């Protein structure tokens, strides 16, 4: 019996580990390295209505314990994603979560409507939190009313469950989470990147051509955990957690905080085999900690003891 299977709205996952959006392309590169079937799901790169080149380079900069990126949502556009990228992924037995982005409400609605009908897309991830796009984008993620209204509009046109991806660059993430829940979100994914920057010692200028970028990697893990801990106690929809996950131990920590599944981003660049490794290591780690199923870990840091009555001798 599996210790790892998890059911979430729209997603019947073999295991709760998936690559995070933007860190795995549309899977092709990694398919040369391992069989994508073993993944819980794949969060594919953000899709916008039109193709986007994204920002000028340099687009990445290293930081202590993390990295900054300012890719700028480069993607081939909705049409090509529907005609090429998603059909290619059909060869794998793995649910796809399509990351939906744009600059206006209409953009989001258009992408959501069309992409949710792709046969292997089992859920949408509404990216209202990308810090690297100038128009719109981040504003949706920082204002509860806008976030709610966008969620409602996308829900209305989507044929699959909608997860909303929250930005950590806010004073009160709980209010945004509650707003999108009220707007009909089926789940949350969190966190997107923290806005940061690095300067070049020689030139005195920002290292990133876009000046600022999104901070990801291990450095942000404590912020992600805190936000998931806060939000999971205030909403009743499930959370896919992310932000600095590198190991099976990190996955358990995210579950304890309140996540029901996790995504791995930056670490794929350091170790392209990180997802398979984590999936392989989880059962032994769970057994060592005394759990018979990973779902027992969700919210364990704050749930009442009685909720876990059947656990442990």
């Amino acid at each position, binding site marked *: 019996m599996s210790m790892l299977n998890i059911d979430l709205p729209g997603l019947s996952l073999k295991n709760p580990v998936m690559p995070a959006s*933007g*860190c*795995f*392309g549309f899977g*092709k*590169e*990694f398919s*040369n*390295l391992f069989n994508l079937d073993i993944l819980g799901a794949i969060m594919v*790169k953000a899709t916008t209505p039109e*193709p*986007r*080149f*994204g920002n000028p*380079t*340099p*687009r*990445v*900069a*290293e*930081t*202590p*314990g*993390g*990295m900054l*990126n300012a*890719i700028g949502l*480069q993607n*081939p*556009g909705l049409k090509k994603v529907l005609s090429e990228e998603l059909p290619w992924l059909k060869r794998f037995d793995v649910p796809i979560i399509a990351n939906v982005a744009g600059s206006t409400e209409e953009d989001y609605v258009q992408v959501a409507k069309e992409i949710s009908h792709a046969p292997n897309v089992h859920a949408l991830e509404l990216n209202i939190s990308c810090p690297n796009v100038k128009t719109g984008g981040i504003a949706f993620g920082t204002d509860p009313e806008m976030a709610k209204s966008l969620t409602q509009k996308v829900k209305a046109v989507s044929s699959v469950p909608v997860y909303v991806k929250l930005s950590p660059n806010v004073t009160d993430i709980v209010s945004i989470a509650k707003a999108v829940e009220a707007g009909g979100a089926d789940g949350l994914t969190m966190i997107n990147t923290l806005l940061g920057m690095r300067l070049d010692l020689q030139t005195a200028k920002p290292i990133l051509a876009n000046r600022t970028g999104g901070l990801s*990697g*291990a450095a942000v893990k404590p912020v992600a955990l805190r936000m998931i801990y806060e939000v999971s106690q205030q909403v009743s929809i499930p959370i896919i957690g992310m932000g600095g996950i*590198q190991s099976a131990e990190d996955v358990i920590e995210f579950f304890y905080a309140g996540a029901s599944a996790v995504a791995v981003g*930056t670490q*794929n*660049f*350091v*170790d*392209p*085999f990180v997802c398979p490794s984590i999936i392989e290591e989880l059962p032994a780690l769970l057994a060592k900690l005394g759990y018979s199923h990973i779902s027992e870990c969700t919210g364990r840091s704050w749930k009442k003891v009685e909720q876990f009555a059947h656990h442990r001798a």
Partner: protein
Amino acid sequence: MLKEHCSVVSHTCIADSVYELVLEGEMTKQMQQPGQFVHVKVSDGLDPVLRRPISIANINQEKSQFTLIYRKQGRGTSLLAEKKPGDQVDILGPLGNGFPVAEAGKGNLAVLVGGGIGVPPLYELAKQLVSKGVTVINILGFQTQGSVFYESKFAELGQTYVATVDGTHGTEGFVTSVLNNEKFHADIVYSCGPTPMLRAVEEGEFAKKVYLSLEERMGCGIGACFACVCHLKDDPEGYSYKKVCSDGPVFRAGEVAI
């Protein structure tokens, strides 16, 4: 492409802050083209976080060994410089598409133009070209005498010019000074080095076929993160692009905007 812990065979300082690192590993078998690179994790854990791209400078199939030559500059290369023979280094590779050796025919004249830490991949290239009967001329640019490396090794493979910016060794000035002065009538030019140098080589039209190896800050090194993207030369504002890591790092001159 493999992710492998390769063991350090030797590690030598061959010029001011320049190190020659010989590694042994299974992945050597997959190394075919000169100009490919490996992505190096210089330390366990997260300090620093990202891998470092370093070109393959020499391939020794019999011994399953390959050579990296790098300049110690920031934290990553400084930590790499501490590795001792017998240590293990976490390497991802070989990556990317290198210089097309097939484009030079037997008896052709190939001019190899390298600048600074762009010189290393040209060594394996020169070796492979010479072994298939191509005449090779090497033009190597450095800042100053102290940074010059592999001059005699290149000289064994073909006529070799060295230019230093401060004139302390060889010709004073840039590699393009040599190119402009000597008029080689090359059949093909291969080049690797800093972007301004590559631009000058491209603009100089020193041969019909010119191949350039580009440098860009990288995330994944395998084509998944879109960190290293460049525009196509004929569509400099458009949506078309190439990834330096997986489509390159070597491109034909005129293919991408540099």
